[in-house]
């Protein structure tokens, strides 16, 4: 069982009519996809629209998704196509829209500096979230902080983290969980108010 299996299971469920399984995938990849699209489309509000479009297209295209490739890779391609089509359409309507060479963007790698994908409305909330996460991380006991960083930032498996931190896998699992819970607890007030706004 690994993350790819997780995605595959969710896709299979979505293909069998469980829309909610697809919704979980949306929640998981929405920001990653938006970040990708922001390399093609400068206006953050448009990025949101195109991201939505891409997810709906992906849902409709589920029947043609063969579970051999990774879901995100497939979603990524749909996202790029959606963005390209959008840009082409925009060219017709608004010649002053910033042209963007999509070919250049396709070769990007994860380590690059991000573009801000926030609209003015969401920017404040995003900043708050970022600050809260950073602060909580700083205050976490070191072993919790390391565990979650190795998992989320380095992308290591529990087994690898256990080897690095020299502890049992169960401990890794528990540390990551406790780190998440601590951060979630701090985020709670933010997310709740966020829900009243456009969230």
């Amino acid at each position: 069982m690994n993350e790819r299996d997780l995605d595959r299971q969710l896709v299979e469920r979505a293909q069998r009519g469980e829309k909610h399984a697809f919704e979980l995938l949306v929640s998981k990849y929405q920001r990653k996809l938006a970040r990708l699209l922001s390399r093609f489309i400068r206006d953050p509000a448009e990025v949101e629209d195109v991201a939505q479009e891409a997810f709906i297209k992906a849902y409709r295209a589920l029947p043609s998704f063969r579970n051999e490739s990774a879901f995100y890779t497939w979603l990524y391609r749909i996202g790029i196509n959606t963005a390209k089509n959008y840009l082409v359409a925009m060219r017709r309507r608004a010649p002053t829209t910033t042209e963007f060479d999509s070919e250049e963007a396709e070769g990007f790698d994860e380590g690059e500096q991000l573009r801000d994908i926030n609209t003015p409305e969401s920017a404040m909330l995003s900043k708050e979230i970022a600050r809260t996460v950073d602060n909580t991380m700083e205050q976490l006991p070191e072993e919790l902080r390391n565990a979650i960083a190795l998992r989320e930032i380095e992308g290591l498996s529990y087994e690898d983290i256990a080897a690095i931190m020299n502890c049992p896998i169960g401990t890794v699992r528990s540390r990551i969980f406790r780190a998440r819970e601590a951060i979630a607890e701090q985020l709670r007030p933010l997310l709740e108010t966020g829900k009243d706004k456009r969230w």
Partner: protein
Amino acid sequence: MREKLSALVDGELRSGDFETHLGRLRTDRELRGAWNTYHLIGDALRGYLGPEITDRVVARLRDEPTVLVPRVARFKRFSWYAMPAAAGIAAVALVVWTASPMWRAPEPALGSVASGPTGTAGPVTAGAPSAGTKPPAAPAEIENYLLAHHPFSHSSAMQGIARYARSVADERGAAGK
């Protein structure tokens, strides 16, 4: 319970637990909230921050016709099976996939019916075997025959094109195995 969700998110939950929890996510709003928050945390740590569009996508999904894709059959899709004309075998066997009575998918049984079903006609015999075994008829060919036959076929009423309009690639794949 949420600890299991945390492991699930990392793809580190064992099989049985995994299915149970995926199921729970469907009905438990709080658990779903945790899923969303855990992913938000991960994204924040990686520096991806942006507005949440899930709710809007979910709202649009409500209006989308539900996608329904059948499970890929464990066995080759629509694979053809021809009786190999091995030297010395006079009577044929019909190689039969047993069809399940309902929608269950049991193992197909390869049955050898030496005399064919009892009926007015005699046993179905294969043509005279030739030296060595030739490959079975290229399935792409059979597709052509089926397509040509289809307008006259009663299965038009079943409105299915499943049986004959299959991809040549699938066919070649099946034939190659």
